[in-house]
């Protein structure tokens, strides 16, 4: 077994820098996914002609194709087409955000459908304006219920961030690769990268599981 604690120790600062980037991307992309996912769900739910079919097709398409290809496509196609340059970091946030928005849309849909039809009927009987029905009655009941599922998707998102090294994002895996290239020792940085993932995702999973249990009880 060829493990050097010194090499491991030395690699930690750079790895932590990478982990910070990973976490930043996770949080930003999750925010994008939660917001955009809700928009998708509402468009599909209210059945706006043309737009809701387009959204449905878009969701199916994004869910059935590799995230990596979507990342490449956004990174290499958007700048020449729109004159907009996006840094690898921003591309990552956008690609992950849009990809996970399609999962979030499904989660929101389930949550909205779980709201009893009697609630809709009472809101209609009281002649509440449509916007109020959504913001005051339906969404306040639908969204808290789906928070655990969204939490699980955030954890999945976190674990997919390393593929962004394909466009040069300096996440924890890319930093591990850097360390490996400089010191010629790959065992410690890559293993530590894996350990760092576990250290973040395991407590996060436990937290989500606890949220699930609480949601199931209330």
């Amino acid at each position, binding site marked *: 077994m060829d493990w050097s604690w010194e090499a491991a120790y030395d690699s930690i600062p750079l790895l932590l820098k990478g982990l910070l980037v990973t976490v930043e991307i996770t949080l930003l992309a999750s925010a994008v996914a939660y917001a955009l996912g809700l928009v998708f769900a509402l468009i599909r739910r209210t059945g706006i002609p043309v737009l809701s079919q387009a959204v449905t097709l878009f969701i199916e398409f994004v869910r059935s*194709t590799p995230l990596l290809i979507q990342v*490449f496509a956004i990174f290499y196609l958007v700048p020449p087409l729109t004159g907009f340059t996006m840094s690898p970091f921003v591309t990552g946030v956008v690609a992950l955000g849009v990809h996970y928005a399609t999962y979030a849309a499904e989660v929101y849909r389930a949550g909205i459908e779980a709201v009893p039809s009697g609630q809709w009927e009472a809101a209609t009987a009281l002649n509440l304006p449509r916007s109020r029905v959504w913001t005051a009655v339906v969404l306040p009941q639908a969204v808290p219920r789906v928070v655990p599922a969204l939490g699980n998707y955030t954890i999945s998102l976190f674990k*997919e961030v390393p593929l962004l090294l394909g466009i040069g994002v300096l996440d924890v895996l890319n930093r591990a690769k850097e360390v490996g290239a400089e010191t010629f020792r790959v065992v410690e940085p890559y293993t530590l990268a894996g350990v760092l993932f576990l250290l973040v995702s395991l407590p996060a999973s436990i937290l989500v599981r606890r949220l699930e249990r609480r949601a199931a009880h209330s």
Partner: protein
Amino acid sequence: MSSSVSHIITSVLSGLTATVTAALGGIALTVVLSLAAGLALRSPSRLVRGISRLYVEIFRGTSEVVQLFWLYFVLPVLVGFQLVPMFAGILVLGLNHGAYGAEIVRGAVNSVPRAQFEGAIALNLTPAQRMRRVILPQAFVEMLPPLNNLFIQLLKSTALLSFIAVPEMARQGELLRPVFGAEIGWIYGTELVLYLLIALLITSGMRALERAAARRLGRAPSKMTAAAGGV
């Protein structure tokens, strides 16, 4: 169609074999590990349960890309021999998705009504016979929709194998990219369409399987689309 576009399409298609090989190999290994680990999670032996729980948590709790890099770059240093890229790729696909599959199998077996277990015990079947003849056939139908989603996830993950130089579609596309400035849209378009087609094939295969299995149990199959689930 211009010659560069047709060149792009044929180049991407040349990666199809590797993609399909990796996908099929990964699915096969996933099925084996999911069953083994899924059943092991229900074992009366604490050691067996512990080992499978460790496997599941480690492979579910870490990133697939990290696992890929570790298996391909670190393991050779530790054990002395280099894994062939395709082999390393299939191994990671199987290990990673097998961990998720284990929970699916465990959940499906748990969903079989208690009465079935008790009935099988009353008929004096051995635990192995119980599993094979009574429980698994019923759990099987429950497993198929989530496994369908898992296999499509796996298919999508084959693109990651481009990081370790497996000549599958994503890698072929990336090799083309520096050469074809204006037509790179075709690269990704072709890739995406091909992945979509393979995903549809997987889903229709699984749906046929589910219909056959449900028929043998005398039940109506569930509705399966990529949008109706998600792992």
